């Protein structure tokens, strides 16, 4: 089984998604040739930042076999907290952001209490939490858009490195690199993947899946807060009723993760593939916008993309299994095996 490095790359998700992205890019350029300009590239990257940051929350949780559906609502709430607190107190924005991020961490801890300690289904708990958080956000703002006047912070979103790359994008890239490194190279990262793959084995190997998941839930809340705060800088406001909440960036990140090969049974995946997934989805969304199609079509394409990707995976898997003379795992369709049902 000596497969050369280059062949492994050709087989990887990163490569497949890269090719798909290139195709989308080519088609868009064919249809509307003038779309490649600095303005569009900046906007596209801005969009990628918000969805992409969620990867560092969603993907590790998925790898460890659980899920957090409250991400987008958490982002909205922390955005509201950030903006309202800043406007009310006038404290330095860094400090206010820190408070909002800590709030996110606390919510993550509450999620973890229900899921890890009480052993309830992550799926249901975090959905309920999402209603609570979104509700609090609209109660605080009465669904009125609150402007943010922290120029020293919002101006960051208009600084571009080499006149093209937004500062936030660099922040996001660094975040992805750090998380990739943690997941691939550190003991903690390996144990995250391990406890998603085989619970019992992980526990017997002396790992503590409960502790790992608690940390990941807290991480998820904090990352969601960061995404919300960055979004408030991009839009210069906090909006509880539209934008961030409606677009459900954590859902997109979830789809991107699965596209990128993060198995939702836990236990496998890397951030590079998930990152390419975000690139593809956001590119597609922006391309549709450029071509004058409504944003909702993105949902249709994301859905189809997800189904096609999973089908290809399944077929490739069974072909490889046949080649190796193994019987493909006949778990049967329709099983509700899903993230958030794993028991610790």
């Amino acid at each position: 089984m000596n497969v050369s490095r280059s062949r492994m790359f050709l087989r990887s998700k990163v490569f497949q998604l890269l090719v798909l992205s290139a195709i989308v890019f080519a088609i868009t350029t064919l249809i509307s040739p003038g779309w490649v300009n600095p303005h569009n590239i900046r906007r596209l990257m801005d969009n990628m930042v918000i969805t992409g940051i969620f990867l560092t929350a969603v993907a590790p949780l998925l790898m460890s076999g659980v899920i957090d559906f409250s991400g987008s609502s958490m982002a909205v709430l922390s955005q509201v907290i950030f903006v309202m607190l800043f406007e009310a107190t006038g404290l330095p924005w860094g400090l206010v952001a820190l408070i909002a991020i800590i709030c996110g961490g606390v919510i993550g801890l509450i999620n973890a209490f229900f899921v890890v300690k009480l052993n309830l289904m992550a799926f249901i708990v975090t959905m309920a939490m999402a209603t609570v958080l979104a509700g609090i956000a609209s109660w605080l703002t009465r669904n009125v858009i609150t402007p943010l006047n922290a120029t020293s912070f919002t101006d960051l979103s208009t600084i571009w490195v080499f006149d093209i790359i937004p500062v936030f994008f660099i922040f996001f890239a660094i975040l992805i690199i750090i998380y990739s490194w943690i997941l691939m190279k550190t003991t903690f990262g390996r144990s995250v993947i391990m406890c998603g793959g085989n619970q019992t084995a992980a526990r017997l190997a002396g790992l503590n899946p409960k502790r790992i998941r608690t940390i990941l839930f807290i991480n998820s809340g904090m990352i969601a807060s960061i995404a919300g705060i960055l979004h408030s800088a991009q839009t210069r406001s906090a909006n509880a009723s539209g934008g961030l909440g409606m677009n459900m960036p954590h859902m997109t990140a979830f789809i991107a993760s699965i596209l990128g090969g993060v198995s939702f049974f836990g236990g496998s995946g890397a951030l590079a593939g998930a990152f390419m997934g975000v690139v593809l989805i956001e590119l597609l969304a922006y391309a549709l916008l450029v071509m004058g199609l409504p944003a909702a079509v993105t949902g249709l394409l994301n859905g189809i993309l997800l189904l096609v990707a999973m089908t290809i995976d399944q077929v490739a898997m069974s072909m490889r299994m046949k080649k190796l003379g193994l019987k493909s795992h006949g778990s049967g369709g329709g099983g509700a095996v899903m993230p958030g049902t794993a028991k610790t």
Partner: protein
Amino acid sequence: MGKVSGNLTASSTNNYAKVHPLKRAMRTKAFPLLVLFALMVIFFSIFPQIHVGPHAIFLRARTFWRILEALSVTGLLTIGAGMLIVSGGIDLSNGSVGSLAGVILATGVSANGWPWWVAVIVAVLASGIVGFLNAVIINELKLPAFVVTLAMAAAIPAVSLFMSRNEIGTFMGQINFRNSTLEAIGRHRIGEANTAALVVLALFVIYGVILARTKFGRTLYLMGGNRAAARLVGINEKRISYFLYINCAVLAGLAGLLNATRVGLAGAQVLVGEQFTGITAAILGGISFGGGSGGLGGAFMGIVVIRTFAQGTAISGASPYLTAPASGALLLLALAFDYFNTSRTNKRLTV
């Protein structure tokens, strides 16, 4: 795949055989919800009187008919979801399917000028087709139901949006429509009770009896507990799975139609998110993911509790902004309560 809980249930039924029927009823999942419901009724009978004034009366027949009416749309989603989850499946797309059915009805009646019954049939058929698609992808391509239906849930609103274009081709997202027959059906009342809500109640009873008392119902539990075993004892689990997905989608379609006829408004997103309420109600009623347990009685009590709370807070004059987070918190509370209840039961069984 083998589940230890199968053994546990078997021994627990033996255990139950000796206990008093009343005690047995108390041990069902519906019981704590019934207690919660009773507590809520007591609280909301007293609190608004003090807090708002003597005109804020909760304890009267009209309130309960209102609650029944409010839960009927979600109730249809709950039945479909509950049956599916018992058998080990899941459908996250039924909120989107319901919205699609509503949009088809609205565009059919208003823009295309179909007779109302044609629009209804087309909408129900379309919902059934989506359910069939779900079933095909899940059963033939063997993809996980969770992801398949999530993808569907993302894709369908786009289709609905495409359909809800106005004359100049702008995507409306929402369509108003008027049809006196449909309105009459959706708002028809027998006495104080909304007829459609009574039909939903009847459906709950019918499906509940099928699930609890018939051979088919038993099959679903077996499938949910251990699908491979179900296949080995000669159950055509694939056919049942097809039936359940289509059933779930058609019920969702009916929910969408009911919702649309009541308010005279349909939109691509109106029921999106409601599927989670349906699933949560099912879970509260003891239907567990991974299948094999629970019943529709508990699921019904689940939505009754959710809607009673909403109605009660409204009568108490709470800000409508507070109702949503409060009912979310209530769900979390109910889940935690359920946890402690279950762990107590388990302790008793192991001793």
